[in-house]
C-alpha cells in the first residue's frame, strides 16, 4: 500500500510558532494503519486520488489529535519512544494543536461538501471523546468487567476503525443501510482486536515494538487483559497483583502458569472474534456491488496480523 504524505507545510499557517514543528514530530513515526485501511476500501470504490487523500488526512488528523489530548490526560511522557508533545512544548500547545487538527478536519470536509461525510466524521469524533471521558473516569476501578471495557473501546478505538470502513462508502455516495451496518460491525471488531492486542503489549506479550510495560496498571488503569488475568484470583492475591511494580513481580504473585493459561484463554476468545469478523465479511461480500467486492479480499487478511502483531 502506497504511503501517502498526509500533509504539506502549506496546510498549517507558518506564522504560528512551534505548530509545524509539533506536527512534524507527531506525524513522523506513525504507522499510518488507519489511512492504509482507508486506502484499501477506497481503491475498489474508484475514488479519486484527491478524495482518498482527503479521507486519509481526515482520519490521521483525528487520530493524532486524540493522541495529543490522550497523552496529556494520561500524563504519558513518551509517544512513539519520543517526548510527548505536552512535555516538549507545553500542555497548552498540545491542547491547542489537537483542537486545531480537529478544526482543520471540519474545514477540509466542508470544502468538499458531502454533508453525510461531515456528519459521519462528527459522530466519530463525538464517540471518541465520549470514550476518552469514560475511560478517564474508570481509573482505579479494579472491579471493571471486560464487557464494560469493550463499551469504552468501542467508543474510543472502534469509532475510528468504523469510520475508516464507512467513510469511503459515504464519500462514494453509497448509503445502503445494511452495508453500513456490516461495515460498522467489522470496524467494531477490528477496533476491539486492536485494543486487546495493544492491552497485551502492556504485559509484554508480543511486544515487538518494545513498548513500555505495565504502564496501564501502574497508572491505576486495569486494561482488558488485566481484567482477564486477575478476575478469578483470590481477593488478597488480586490486591497484591494490582500493586505490582514490574512484570516479574506480577508473575511471581499470580504464578507463571496462571499467566500463561489466562493468556491462552484470552487468545481463544479473540480467535473467536476473528472468526466472527470473517463471517461478517463474507456476508458483506454478498451485499456489495460487483466492482466493490474486492474490498472483502482486502479486509479479510487484516484481523490476524492486527491481533497477533506479526512483524
Amino acid at each position, binding site marked *: 500500500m502506497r504511503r501517502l504524505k498526509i500533509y504539506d507545510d502549506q496546510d498549517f499557517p507558518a506564522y504560528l510558532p512551534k505548530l509545524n514543528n509539533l506536527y512534524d514530530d507527531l506525524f513522523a513515526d506513525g504507522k499510518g494503519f488507519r489511512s492504509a485501511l482507508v486506502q484499501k476500501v477506497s481503491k475498489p470504490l474508484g475514488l479519486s486520488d484527491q478524495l482518498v487523500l482527503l479521507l486519509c488526512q481526515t482520519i490521521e488528523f483525528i487520530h493524532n489529535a486524540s493522541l495529543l489530548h490522550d497523552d496529556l490526560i494520561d500524563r504519558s511522557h513518551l509517544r512513539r519512544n519520543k517526548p510527548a508533545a505536552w512535555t516538549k512544548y507545553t500542555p497548552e500547545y498540545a491542547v491547542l494543536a489537537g483542537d486545531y487538527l480537529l478544526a482543520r478536519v471540519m474545514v477540509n470536509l466542508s470544502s468538499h461538501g458531502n454533508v453525510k461525510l461531515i456528519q459521519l466524521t462528527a459522530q466519530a469524533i463525538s464517540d471518541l471523546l465520549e470514550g476518552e471521558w*469514560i475511560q478517564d*473516569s*474508570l481509573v482505579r*476501578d*479494579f*472491579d*471493571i*468487567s*471486560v*464487557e*464494560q*471495557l*469493550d*463499551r*469504552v473501546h468501542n467508543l474510543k478505538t472502534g469509532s475510528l476503525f468504523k469510520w475508516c470502513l464507512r467513510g469511503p462508502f459515504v464519500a462514494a455516495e453509497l448509503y445502503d*443501510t*445494511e452495508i453500513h*451496518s*456490516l461495515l*460498522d*460491525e467489522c470496524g*467494531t*471488531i477490528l477496533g*476491539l482486536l486492536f485494543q486487546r492486542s495493544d492491552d497485551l503489549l502492556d504485559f509484554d506479550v508480543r511486544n515487538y515494538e518494545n513498548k513500555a510495560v505495565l504502564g496501564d496498571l501502574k497508572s491505576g488503569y486495569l486494561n482488558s487483559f488485566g481484567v482477564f488475568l486477575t478476575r478469578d484470583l483470590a481477593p488478597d492475591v488480586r490486591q497484591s497483583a494490582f500493586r505490582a511494580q514490574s512484570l516479574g513481580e506480577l508473575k511471581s504473585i499470580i504464578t507463571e502458569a496462571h499467566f500463561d493459561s489466562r493468556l491462552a*484463554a*484470552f487468545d*481463544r*476468545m479473540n480467535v*473467536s*472474534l476473528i*472468526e*466472527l469478523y470473517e*463471517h*461478517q465479511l463474507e*456476508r458483506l461480500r454478498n451485499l456489495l456491488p460487483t466492482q466493490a467486492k474486492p474490498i472483502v479480499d482486502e479486509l479479510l487478511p487484516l484481523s490476524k496480523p492486527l491481533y497477533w502483531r506479526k512483524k
Partner: protein
Amino acid sequence: MTLDSNVTTPRSFKTLSRRDDEFTSYLDGSFSSAQVALPVRSLNVGTATEQVTFEILEASAVEAPSFLKVAEALVRPTSLIFSAGPMLTVLSRAGAREINWLVAIASFIGVLAFQVATNLFNDYGDHMKGQDRVRPQGGSRAIQKGWVRARTVKQSALGLTGFAALCGVPAIIHSPVLIAAGLALLFTLEFAFQRLRLKARGWAEGLAFLLTGPLLTTGYIYAVTGRAELADATLGCAFGAIALLYFHSANFENIMIDSQAGARTWATRAGFDASKTFYQVVALACLVISAVHVIASERDPRLLSATFAQAVLLYAASQRVARLKSPLSSDLQGLRNSAIQLSWLTTLVMIPNYIWMSVA
C-alpha cells in the same frame, strides 16, 4: 463482545434478518431440537432491518449448570421479597382481624407465581425484542447463554400465569370485588410486553410503586380479612418506595446503554449526575415514608427499629452512589441488590415487631 474463551473448535455462525422466515424460530430456539442458536451480535435492534448473528452449537455442547441453578437464575428468588415482603408484613399486622387462611395462603402463592411469571415473560420479551441481547447485564442471561430455549421460558410463564389465576379463585369467591384487584395485577405484565410502552415513557417506576406497594398490601389484607386500614396502605407505601429504589437502580445501571438506544427512563432523562441525586432522594423518601408510617399510622416507637436498620443500609448504599464516577463504574453494577437487601431487612425487622405488638 465477549465470546466464550473455552471453545477451541472453529465456530459456526448464521446471520438472519427480521425479514427472514426462520428469524423467530432461531430466536425462540424452536428451529431444532438437536442444536441451539446463541445470539452473539444484534444489529439495528428494534427496527425492521434488525439482524442477529447466531453461533450454532450442538445442544450437548452447551455447558449449562444444573437444573436448580438455571431455575434460580430465571426465578430470581431473592427478588420475590418485593411481593412476599409486603404480603407477609401486612399479614403480621392484621392483629385481631379474622384471617381466612385458605385465601391467605392461596393468594400469597398466586402473587409469587405471578411475579415469577412476569420475570419469565420479561426475559422472553426482552430477548425477542433485543433489549437483553444488547444489555450485557440484562435479565437472567439464561436464554442468551443457551441454558434454556426462549420458547420454553414463554411456555413456563404461561403455565405459571394459569396457576396464579387458579390460586386467585378462593380470594375472588370470598370477595368478588377482588376481580378488580386481579385485573390491576395484570398490569404487571406490562413490564414484560410493553404494549402501552409505559416503561419507555418513564412510568415503570410509578407503576412498580403502586403494584408492589399500597395496592398489594391493601388488596391482599382485604382479600384475607375483608377489611383494609389506612396503616396497611402506608405500610405499602414504605415497601413501594423500596421497589421504586430498585427500579431506579436498575435503570441507573443501564443508563449508558439505554441512552445510546434512545430509551427514555427516569435515569436517561435526568442524566448521570442527577440520577445520583435522585437515588439519594428516593433513599431519603424510603426513610421518611417508613418513619411516617411508624409515627403517624402505627404510633408505636418499637417499629422505629426498622427505620433505623434501613438508615444504616441506605447510608452505605448512598455513599456508594456518591462515589460513582462513571456510567461504567463497577460500583454501579449490582446497585439494585441494595434495594433487594433493604426489602429483606424491612420485612425481617418489621414482622417480629408486629407479632410482638399483637401478643402484647
